[in-house]
């Protein structure tokens, strides 16, 4: 008689399409074979997870068609099953999987569309957070403001993609065949900002310099250092816009490492 853990490991292997025999040995026949009985659960597993991926990657699904998507999803599910029932999180790694999936090689922009959709889905379900008010920052003594380190909103994400995935994604989801026909899917990098808004998720194209500046803030570079770099834009104006749009939710003022501490 198997222990519960042995049984659960065996059933998991069976349902994941690996070793069917071990699980089948524990299951009664009674009119249906153990394999037939286990396959009911395997079909549900594949159906539920394929559906979850389809909801997270609707543009990828439309680009490749349902039949192709189901095959790709099943292969991905077998390689990278979810760790939990919080399926809104499921799909991490699908873009890299598609990049290495030979049948998808004729659509070189597909992994970037998947990267964008992953980011959009992440933004959609990210935790809520109260945005930082400009007034909060102005309470910091002027001499210390350069040291401010901002914390981004959980939904904010920055993507640098090799293909214009935002244009492809919009055209595909609009269902407008003419718009899709006008998109040039050739290799041309784009710098994107993804964030949740009142209406849904916004995807905004930025210049490389704006993206770099924002990326530094998100990555924890002190305000003074980030503002010094600048570029083909006015960083303080961009910063004000970020704060007005609620893209940052809190801040810290770390001690200056150059000043020795005697505590």
């Amino acid at each position: 008689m198997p222990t519960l853990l042995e049984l659960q490991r065996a059933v998991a292997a069976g349902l994941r399409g690996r070793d069917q025999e071990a699980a089948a040995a524990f299951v009664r026949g009674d009119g249906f074979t153990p394999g037939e009985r286990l396959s009911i659960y395997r079909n549900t597993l594949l159906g539920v997870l394929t559906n979850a991926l389809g909801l997270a990657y609707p543009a990828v699904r439309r680009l490749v068609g349902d039949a192709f998507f189901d095959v790709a999803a099943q292969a991905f599910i077998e390689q990278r099953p979810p760790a939990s029932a919080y399926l809104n999180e499921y799909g991490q790694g699908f873009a890299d999987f598609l990049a290495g999936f030979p049948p998808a090689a004729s659509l070189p922009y597909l992994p970037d569309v998947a990267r964008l959709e992953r980011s959009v889905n992440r933004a959609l379900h990210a935790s809520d957070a109260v945005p930082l008010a400009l007034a909060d920052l102005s309470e910091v003594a002027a001499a210390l403001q350069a040291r401010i380190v901002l914390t981004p909103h959980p939904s904010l994400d920055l993507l640098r993609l090799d293909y214009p995935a935002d244009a492809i994604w919009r055209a595909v989801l609009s269902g407008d065949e003419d718009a899709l026909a006008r998109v040039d899917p050739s290799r041309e990098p784009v710098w994107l900002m993804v964030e949740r808004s009142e209406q849904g998720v916004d995807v905004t194209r930025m210049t490389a310099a704006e993206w770099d500046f924002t990326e530094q803030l998100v990555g924890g570079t002190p305000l003074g250092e980030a503002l010094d770099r600048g570029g083909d834009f006015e960083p303080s104006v961009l910063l004000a816009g970020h704060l007005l749009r609620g893209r940052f939710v809190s801040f810290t003022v770390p001690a200056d490492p150059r000043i020795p501490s005697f505590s």
Partner: protein
Amino acid sequence: MTGRSAAGTDPVAGDPERELIPARAGIGLRFAHHRIVAETRPPVAWFEVHTENYMGGGAPLRCLDAIRADYPVSLHGVGLSLGSAEGLSAEHLARVARVVERVEPGLVSEHLSWSVTGSVYLADLLPLPMTEEALAVLSRNVDQLQTVLRRPILIENPSSYLQYRHSTIPEWEFLAAVAARTGCGILCDVNNVYVSASNHGWDAAAYLAALPAAAVGEIHLAGHSLRTLADGRSIRIDDHGSPVADAVWALYAAALERFGPIPTLIEWDNDIPALETLLREAARADAAMSSIGPPPGRTKTLEHGQRREPAHADTA
């Protein structure tokens, strides 16, 4: 003590405003109906939602907050995997606890099943072997969940399509034993009783008769389908994609005879119909409940359509 731990007992200290789920028909609320419910406020006594659908932020949670302001809400989990030999995932348990804290539900329920092993979620409610070991594991995990949530939960019987060779305990006895050991209540899914009984050759009426009535705190009703193979063999599949079957309505009447009027949920998850269809199914359940009197020996105070029982009213 097999406390009537469902809707009535032990309101958590500091949370006196939690609205209890009335002994009426409720509807499983899915995203497809969020907007129409928020905009039209249909006459539904209560809603139940899947806990896993509200673990993030953004629009779904905002919408649920708005609905929760006007209706009692029950949280029904599908992914905690209470039957896992390795114990509960601390991460998922924390997510469940956060949703419970936010929603302040009238009822919290999960399943007599497992779905996680080796950090892999197998995306279905998998049957447990009905053994003493599995009973001990499930009871330990239910204990932990109830300790973390500081409230009793309900455990639902799943539909099943297989039985293990080494099972020794009938499912109804297994459920009763978990309730007795942990003080949890039972969510009796009448459709699941019908489906499993039909698939395994059990007597559905005897199943209901064997459950400890005082522990049953909620009923689920849903549609299932009969899958027939070319060679004539058939199996019933719990797919929540059609109206409640007549045979299940008949079994529901038997359940009400035994358990009295208790919160009854209409579940529909696939090919979700117009809200009116769900309202009609709910009205049918309400009519069945009205046709029987209150259960014997049960204190019941109805105010504004809410079922509110004094703490410990039904503990025997």
